[in-house]
């Protein structure tokens, strides 16, 4: 790697010294710009079409009160949550893929999503719960599953391979239980459960959004503070320890942050699949870095979910699809395209 590939801030000997990979930074900025432009588009689109000027006025609280209400109370929370939830999922995926050094890694590995689905299914099918009760049930289920996997995999420390195996085993049991619930339930509650299980931002309001957004933002900042340690941990426990990184503790901290990020996203929108898996992969290919690029993963995740939600709302309007269905489709198609492009580059 040539030195000019990096941007420097400060001097190596000085109090402030920051080295950022130039390509990663550029890609991150471009992604952020694209996400903001798409957000502007999403605020204007819908049954009530608004121009950019009208959206801007409404955001500032000027113009007709009716328009301001549409933009600020209905559309803004949805757009903000798409960015936050998508970013959180992208980042947590990056954490898990880095920790277990496996590109198939996602928060699913420790059983969180399956556990959350179990919690939601129990709340919907057995208890007929409301929105907040379902979110609570999902959180409890997810956290319990993640904790169980961690405890069962712990044996003088956590080893990536053992974590994967125990995660698979617990997920398989929970998934089997979920299947049993689904075929025992009435068709109506099974459909409700399946809708929740697909993941959706339909009908989100500030009340529902704020708690999870706050949790996500705090966890994101903490993750970014740990990003250097995460990169060192990728070199192996021994090298990391030699460089002064407490391996086991850092791993536990990172994993907890990953779980908090996924939990916040799931509580707000249900288990939106594929973003945690695809965003870090896409980010890594875009920024051409071998390590995991946390910020890039955030922006890819945010952009992906916003785009998917835009499609979910408008593709089959007036019918609204759950956004989770669109994320799997778009994410999958994009990954296929990346595979094609990569092989064209390799052969040319």
């Amino acid at each position, binding site marked *: 790697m040539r030195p000019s590939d990096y941007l420097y801030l400060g001097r190596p000997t000085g109090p402030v010294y920051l080295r950022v990979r130039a390509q990663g930074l550029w890609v991150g900025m471009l992604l952020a710009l694209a996400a903001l432009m798409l957000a502007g588009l999403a605020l204007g689109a819908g049954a009530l079409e608004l121009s950019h000027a009208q959206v801007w006025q409404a955001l500032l609280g000027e113009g007709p009160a009716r328009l301001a209400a549409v933009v600020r109370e209905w559309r803004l929370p949805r757009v903000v949550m798409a960015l936050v939830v998508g970013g959180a999922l992208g980042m947590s995926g990056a954490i898990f893929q880095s920790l277990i050094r*496996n*590109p*198939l890694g996602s928060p699913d*590995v420790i059983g969180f999503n399956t556990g959350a689905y179990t919690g939601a299914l129990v709340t919907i099918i057995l208890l007929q719960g409301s929105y907040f009760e379902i979110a609570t049930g999902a959180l409890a289920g997810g956290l319990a599953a993640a904790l169980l996997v961690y405890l*069962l*995999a712990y*044996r003088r420390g956590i*080893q*990536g*391979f*053992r974590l*994967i*195996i*125990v995660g*698979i*085993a*617990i997920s*398989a*049991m929970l*998934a*089997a*239980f979920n*299947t*049993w619930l*689904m*075929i025992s339930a009435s*068709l109506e509650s*099974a*459909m409700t459960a*399946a*809708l929740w299980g*697909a993941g959706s931002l339909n009908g989100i309001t500030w009340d529902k959004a704020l708690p999870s957004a706050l949790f996500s933002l705090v966890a994101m900042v903490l993750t970014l503070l740990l990003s250097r340690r995460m990169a060192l941990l990728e070199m192996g426990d021994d090298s990391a320890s030699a460089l002064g990184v407490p391996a086991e503790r850092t791993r536990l901290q990172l994993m907890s942050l990953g779980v908090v990020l996924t939990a916040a996203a799931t509580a707000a929108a249900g288990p939106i*699949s*594929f973003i945690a*898996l695809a965003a870090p*992969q896409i980010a890594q290919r875009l920024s051409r870095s071998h390590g995991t690029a946390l910020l890039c993963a955030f922006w890819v995740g945010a952009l992906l979910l916003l785009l998917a939600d835009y499609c979910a709302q408008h593709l089959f309007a007036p*019918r609204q*699809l*759950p956004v*989770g*269905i*669109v*994320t*799997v*489709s778009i*994410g*999958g*198609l994009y*990954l*296929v395209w990346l*595979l*094609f492009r990569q*092989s*064209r580059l*390799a*052969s040319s």
Partner: protein
Amino acid sequence: MHKAPLPTTLPAANRLAWLVLCLGLLAVLVLLSLTLGAKPIALAVVADSLFGSGLHPDAIIITQGRLPRTLLGLLAGAALGLSGAIIQALTRNPLADPGILGVNAGASFAVVLGAGVFGITSAAGYLAFAFTGALATTLLVYLVGAYGTARLEPMRFVLAGVAISAVMMGFASSITLLNPWAFDRVRFWSAGSLDVRDLALVLQVAPALLLGIVIALLLARPLNVLGMGEDLAVSLGSRPRLIHATAVLAITLLCGASTAIAGPIGFVGLMIPHIARWMMGTDQRWIMACTLLLAPVLLLASDIIGRLLVPGELRVSIVTAFVGAPVLIWLARRAQLSGGRA
């Protein structure tokens, strides 16, 4: 061919003893599967219904219910286990299960199409749709994974499989969420069961399964050579591309046919090869032999437990997870795991 000893965990005599033990266990389970159920039937009556006059009133339970079920348990178990062993050997990834090449997603999508768009209701119709879907999807995954690369990268197949499965699942859910009737059909289809109640259906998929099993066993040695690295394998005279293509064909036949008839049954293909590797070492010939016997053991045992546990029967795909997962956790905690192949 090379005769270099491969590193193993158990001496050959012990490994052979394990295999014999598995075989005995399997034989016992076949007998239990024929006799146990909602109505226990004596062995003499079972023998009479299968080979004798078949005049006993319970004979119909045996020939229509338990024989197809047991036969399917044997075949589908071996098929799921072997396809898992192949995919894990090919990708060298412990997370890889046979479904990763898109077989399950393709079969589910085709069943959704059949139920939601074409209004199919018969078991034979689902079987045809599911098998076609599985075949077409794996072919697509293989083409995407192998497109334009000089070297074969197993990880590309896995990513292509994940990507295409995701697209299929997305399409399938959007159809089912907008069509409650199809949703209802598919939710039962996707809880896999061995209870097919039709010997003709089992015999219809049996050739595909048997062919797949033979190909899988023939692949053991080439996969060993490939495991030493592509360059070394080429210099020893093997043809990696041919091996890959054959392996994908075997997985499609095995996993596609068993999913088509029984619905998706997870976990067998993931877990049994892991256990076989811990017991037998890294030689694929031993892993395959062990998997061939152990996977039907898990499937038949789960099916029998599901019959006896609750009056209405628990489906086998649900029981396999609850029988297999604790064993897997126990082994993962006990064994000095080799992360080397991870």
